[in-house]
């Protein structure tokens, strides 16, 4: 290297790495969506036949897959007698095997997984655009700390559900830190709610919210393709007596 990397170069490099991961995950979502769209199950929605074929499981098992869960979440249509339904596979964190997600869909239960109210379902339905939510605790679902990426599935002009991918915060972080290697300056990646998505500054761990006043100046750089911002921070070591 001819000299110290400039801060602007560093921001560009981190931003590009984050964008690449996000696009790779949305690539998996698009494959799920394509599998949903070529399914004939939509012709007889009442049959309860699965919409997705084996390709989705193969995709989840593919080497280098970052997603820990993939699938389709169907929009319920009470008027047509169609209940809440998921076709979601996920990698069991202990055994590495694929399991289907069968959450509690009884509205009267303490454990009711009310996904139609969940941001990852509701936002793509309303905006008809792709969406990323998290990090968040997927209560009553997978029980993991996740990012969930979803996009709407529209059949003959009608919203029928969302295709999506889950990535655990552990996998997201491990992958990106490995790709980025040694960094000259600590940085914070924050989502639209000012929640830390990725951090190399120990004072602001993943999941914390940036305090409104004490946070870095709004000079944070936009990350292409996703409403996240990147801040370089001056954060000295805490490992000091």
């Amino acid at each position, binding site marked *: 290297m001819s000299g110290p990397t400039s801060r602007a170069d560093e921001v560009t490099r981190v931003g590009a790495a984050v964008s690449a991961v996000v696009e790779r995950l949305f690539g998996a979502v698009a494959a799920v969506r394509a599998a949903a769209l070529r399914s004939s199950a939509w012709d007889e929605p009442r049959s309860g036949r699965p919409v997705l074929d084996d390709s989705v499981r193969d995709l989840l098992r593919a080497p280098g897959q970052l997603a820990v869960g993939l699938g389709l979440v169907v929009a319920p249509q009470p008027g047509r007698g169609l209940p809440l339904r998921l076709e979601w596979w996920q990698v069991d964190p202990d055994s590495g095997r694929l399991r289907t997600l069968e959450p509690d869909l009884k509205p009267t*239960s303490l454990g009711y997984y009310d996904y139609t109210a969940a941001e990852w379902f509701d936002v793509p339905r309303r905006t008809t655009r792709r969406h990323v939510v998290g990090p968040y605790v997927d209560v009553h679902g997978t029980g993991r700390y996740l990012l969930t990426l979803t996009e709407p599935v529209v059949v003959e002009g009608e919203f029928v559900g969302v295709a999506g991918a889950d990535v655990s915060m552990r996998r997201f972080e491990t992958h990106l830190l490995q790709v980025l290697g040694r960094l000259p300056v600590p940085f914070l990646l924050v989502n639209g709610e000012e929640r830390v998505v990725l951090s190399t500054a120990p004072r602001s761990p993943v999941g914390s919210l940036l305090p409104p006043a004490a946070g870095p100046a709004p000079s944070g750089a936009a990350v292409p393709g996703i409403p996240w911002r990147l801040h370089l921070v001056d954060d000295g070591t805490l490992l000091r007596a």
Partner: protein
Amino acid sequence: MQLLSGDARRAVFAPLDDGALRSEAVVRRVGSAIALGLLGDGEQLPTETHLATMLNVSTVTLREALAELRKLGLVETRRGRGGGSFVRSRDDVLAELADARLAELGTTDLRELGDVHGAVAAAAARLAASRASRTEIARLRDIVDRLARAESVTDQRRAEGRYFIELAACAQSVRLTMQEMDLHLELGQLPWPPEHVPELLDVIVAGHRAVVDAIEDRDQARARALTEEHIETRTLWSIELRLQRVADDAVRQEVS
């Protein structure tokens, strides 16, 4: 049924490890799951073999427990094609079961349970005050509103359970969330104080609203202190209900 860790029903079928009196422990666990709606009215239970494996009890113990649940009217077994064991949700039986559980426990057990719940929920409230997003705070508020409107005892219990579980999720903590789910399965085995004194529901709702206000104000110390205080009050209610029972029993004995 494949239950993942985030699913509150997981705790229902987690292995029992309390040794003695296992068939009673199965009965209590199932009763609490029904009270919290985790097992719904008419829902089919897994097969005997599967259930015994999940709960880590012998099939003999499991059969004893199912016989007891049938006697109580919480489970109905149908033979033949489409047969199996089905859940029957009955508030009167659940209240009796809760009362019987209270009688088994000492006031120290109640204090211990309250101490752990206080530690978990107060830590969650403090963290939520710094980590909950506006959307999450709005969701908490919505749950408390639902609790205020809930009419049946079971609806009130469920709404309150969801409040505490959501509070832990607002703390961005999977572990605290799991702890809350497990604790609620135990708390669900005890009487619900507003069932004895209906006005207490207002106290509970006001207590939770004050915590949500503190979280919204980003006041960590207040969120923590109010949660601790509230759960302490709740523990004292359970202890008083327990002691009242002793007094009632004494009166009954004197009369007879």
